[in-house]
């Protein structure tokens, strides 16, 4: 019952300690960040058992009873997202020990990293709409700073674009929250849901839904709002690219959309069809833009847009199978996309370039990077038996089951184009003849290898999450979304 606030306290506390003492004690950042994320991972794994036993946990901040006081809510969906976020962040922290050596001010990096993590965990467990906004801003501001971390010309430019777009999105979200507060006179998400059911729908609620869709859609980089992502994600240090593409866009964008539209505002067929349409467009546009890229990280960033499209399409179908596919793909994508970005970082670390045309035959010199990259490429392209195959298969089956043949076709075409694009990566970077320039490159240090290998293992065995033993992990998250506005009743039931 009392573990809920620790998801925010631990990263905030470590960020504070690192910023205070990190300059004097050199290794403090490495130790505290890794220890903190490891504890968070353990806590989030433990939260699965809690959710299994209690269904839902509500923590009343300061002892005030909701809806007057602020509350934190842990249910199946939160627990699922917490595991995803903290798993990736632990492995990224492990990777950063060696990778971030080439930057100065490593302790500042860890401070911002932990602040971003605090923001993301806060969004996931917040049961209060304004708190969600505050945590969203904490995560966003630290990510703007992290994108500019190298302070080279390109990085600053990308960060400026990202910060401007992100702030406009935050403006839309805050306007939506203000309107929703004026309509319902409450900020507690469960209470808003109750009041909205009593008052019935009106034009104002539709307007609020559009504002939220714009704001969170921009944070999730759905296609009409995607322009910042391809600049911002490649410019960050590789470990941060992995965090941004792997979990940040999903928590800030997709999770918030899911929670607000399914559980708070209430889902309607119009919103579902908008989500499906945006998903399908993102899926195709992202992958087509990715095909022409020669910069390794930029190519990966465009694939993030495309894969977010798959997730949103799956969730937008609104059927149990579709939501299962979407959520499973969310988990899988966070694993293999972080792995791919860590691979690109490893190549950058050893070679100092990200241009695919300058690489070649790296398989001989960097076997671990090459093999883990092969696994991740096959996962993202959807080749059995890797995890990406299962989630894409479920999404396509769900499209067929819902009689959406056009969307199923889009998903298949997107998958084929993804395969083509990653064959290009493999051919130019890792296979073929070794480029003379790279005769003496070495494999990356142990911590980086270890984190890539663990992620690759999860890619291989990820499909087992569908087996009956592990099924409750995904199913409890799906149940929360299927519950829709019944969420309010369950939250208030848990308070008494």
């Amino acid at each position, binding site marked *: 019952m009392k573990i809920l606030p620790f998801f925010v306290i631990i990263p905030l506390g470590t960020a504070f300690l690192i910023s205070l003492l990190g300059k004097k004690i050199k290794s403090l950042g490495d130790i505290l960040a890794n220890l903190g994320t490891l504890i968070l991972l353990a806590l989030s794994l433990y939260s699965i058992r809690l959710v299994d036993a209690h269904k839902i946990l509500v923590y009343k901040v300061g002892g005030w009873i909701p809806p007057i006081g602020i509350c934190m809510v842990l249910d199946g969906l939160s627990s699922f997202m917490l595991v995803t976020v903290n798993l990736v962040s632990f492995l990224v922290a492990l990777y950063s020990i060696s990778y971030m050596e080439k930057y100065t001010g490593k302790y500042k990096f860890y401070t911002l990293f932990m602040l971003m993590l605090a923001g993301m965990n806060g969004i996931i467990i917040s049961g209060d709409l304004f708190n969600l906004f505050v945590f969203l*801003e904490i995560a966003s501001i630290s990510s703007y700073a992290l994108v500019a971390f190298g302070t080279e010309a390109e990085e600053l430019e990308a960060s400026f674009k990202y910060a401007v777009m992100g702030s406009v999105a935050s403006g839309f979200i805050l306007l939506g929250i203000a309107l929703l507060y004026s309509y319902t006179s409450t900020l507690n998400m469960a209470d808003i849901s109750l009041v909205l059911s009593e008052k019935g729908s009106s034009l104002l609620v539709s307007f609020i839904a559009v504002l939220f869709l714009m704001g969170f859609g921009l944070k999730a980089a759905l296609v009409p709002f995607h322009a910042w992502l391809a600049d911002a994600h490649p410019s960050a240090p590789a470990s941060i690219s992995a965090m941004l593409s792997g979990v940040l866009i999903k928590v800030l964008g997709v999770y918030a959309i899911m929670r607000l539209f399914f559980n708070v505002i209430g889902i309607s067929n119009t919103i579902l069809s908008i989500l499906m349409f945006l998903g399908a467009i993102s899926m195709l546009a992202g992958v087509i833009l990715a095909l022409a890229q020669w910069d390794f990280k930029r190519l990966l960033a465009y694939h993030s847009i495309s894969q977010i499209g798959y997730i949103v399409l799956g969730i937008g179908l609104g059927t149990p199978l579709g939501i299962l596919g979407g959520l499973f793909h969310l988990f899988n994508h966070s694993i293999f996309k972080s792995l791919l970005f860590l691979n690109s970082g490893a190549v950058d670390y050893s070679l100092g370039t990200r241009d695919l045309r300058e690489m070649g035959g790296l398989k001989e010199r960097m076997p671990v990077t090459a093999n883990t990259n092969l696994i991740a490429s096959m996962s993202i392209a959807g080749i059995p038996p890797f995890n990406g195959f299962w989630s894409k298969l479920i999404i396509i089956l769900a499209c067929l089951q819902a009689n959406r043949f056009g969307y199923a076709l889009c998903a298949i075409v997107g998958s084929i184009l993804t395969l083509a694009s990653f064959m290009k990566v493999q051919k130019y970077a890792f296979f073929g003849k070794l480029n003379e320039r790279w005769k003496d490159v070495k494999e990356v240090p142990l911590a980086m290898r270890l984190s890539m290998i663990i992620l690759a293992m999860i890619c291989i065995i990820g499909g087992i999450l569908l087996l009956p033993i592990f099924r409750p992990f995904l199913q409890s998250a799906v149940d929360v979304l299927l519950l829709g506005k019944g969420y309010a009743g369950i939250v208030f039931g848990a308070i008494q």
Partner: protein
Amino acid sequence: MSEYILCLILFCIGLYCVLRKRNIIKIVIGLGIIEYAVNLFFVLIGYRMHGRAPILAKDQQILNMVDPIPQALVLTSIVIGLAVTALIVAIAIRLYEKYGTFDITKINRLKG
């Protein structure tokens, strides 16, 4: 009603400024206008005609008070806005050092 519409117009002015202006400092100012418009709107929601502050004291009866929650929220929102503005201005200064210009159309090394 008219004050809400004025807020919305202010919001749109800010949005126009962000979208159309080429000078990055003006873009930052535009962001500030957007943020103020939203804050103002939030405060107005909680306002009641001739209302007073909701502080309960002895032998006093409060008949008409303003809603305190939006005021508390707007304070938080102003602090967040300060952080964003400070960060973006810092980035703008570094951009000027690297590119030697404030013109956003000349800051275009990232393409594709």
